[in-house]
């Protein structure tokens, strides 16, 4: 199982700040597709994704225990 984290507007749209799902062996892109298929939230596709607190490309293969964070466009500062 892996953990998905959602923040800011995406968290509000999903209705939860985290969900668990089986995804070991999938790519990050596939995980995004799966979340998109389930929630139909436009931002899921466009936002950046981090694996274990580091931005990662869509080709990344998910490992057991990974934490995947969906990072909407940031607005700190």
């Amino acid at each position, binding site marked *: 199982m892996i953990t998905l984290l959602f923040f*800011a507007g995406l968290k509000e749209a999903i209705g939860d700040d985290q969900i668990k799902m089986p995804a070991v062996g999938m790519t990050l892109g596939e995980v995004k597709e799966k979340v998109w298929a389930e929630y139909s939230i436009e931002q899921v596709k466009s936002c*950046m994704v981090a694996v274990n*607190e580091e931005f990662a490309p869509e080709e990344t293969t998910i490992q057991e225990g990974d934490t995947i*964070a969906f990072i909407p*466009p*940031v607005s*700190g500062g």
Partner: protein
Amino acid sequence: MEKRCWITDQPLDIQIITEKVIRREAGAINTFIGTVREFTNGRKTLFLQYESYKEMAEKKLEQIATEIDQHWPEAVTVIAHRVGRLEISDIAVMIAVSTPHRSDSYEASRYAIERIKEIVPIWKKEHWEDGEEWIGDQKQTRPGIPLKGEIK
């Protein structure tokens, strides 16, 4: 070693943060303080709510400080960002950089705030009299997507 970059839900202390970079080798200190502004494009803000992905945000601030170390080896950098509910004039972010000479302090400080707006997972929600909105979610105000080269 004391942390040089952190996220907190407590008020940021200008004096304490500045003092962290004062040292005998430095002749110049530049600080940047981002505060909550009341009006943006004529629209009145009541307050802001900042949220972060704390562990990653602290790592990314630390990455920015490391980038500064590489570009300006003589710089000492401190960066703090506040989260939670902030009222008008409250300090959201503070950067302090000390260097031997003044040019470097300005450049490194500027670099830090620009990078914060690019790569650090912190979001703000504007609360107006007539609504609220997560900033950065709209295509026209999207500073948040790191360039490909920044993805490790």
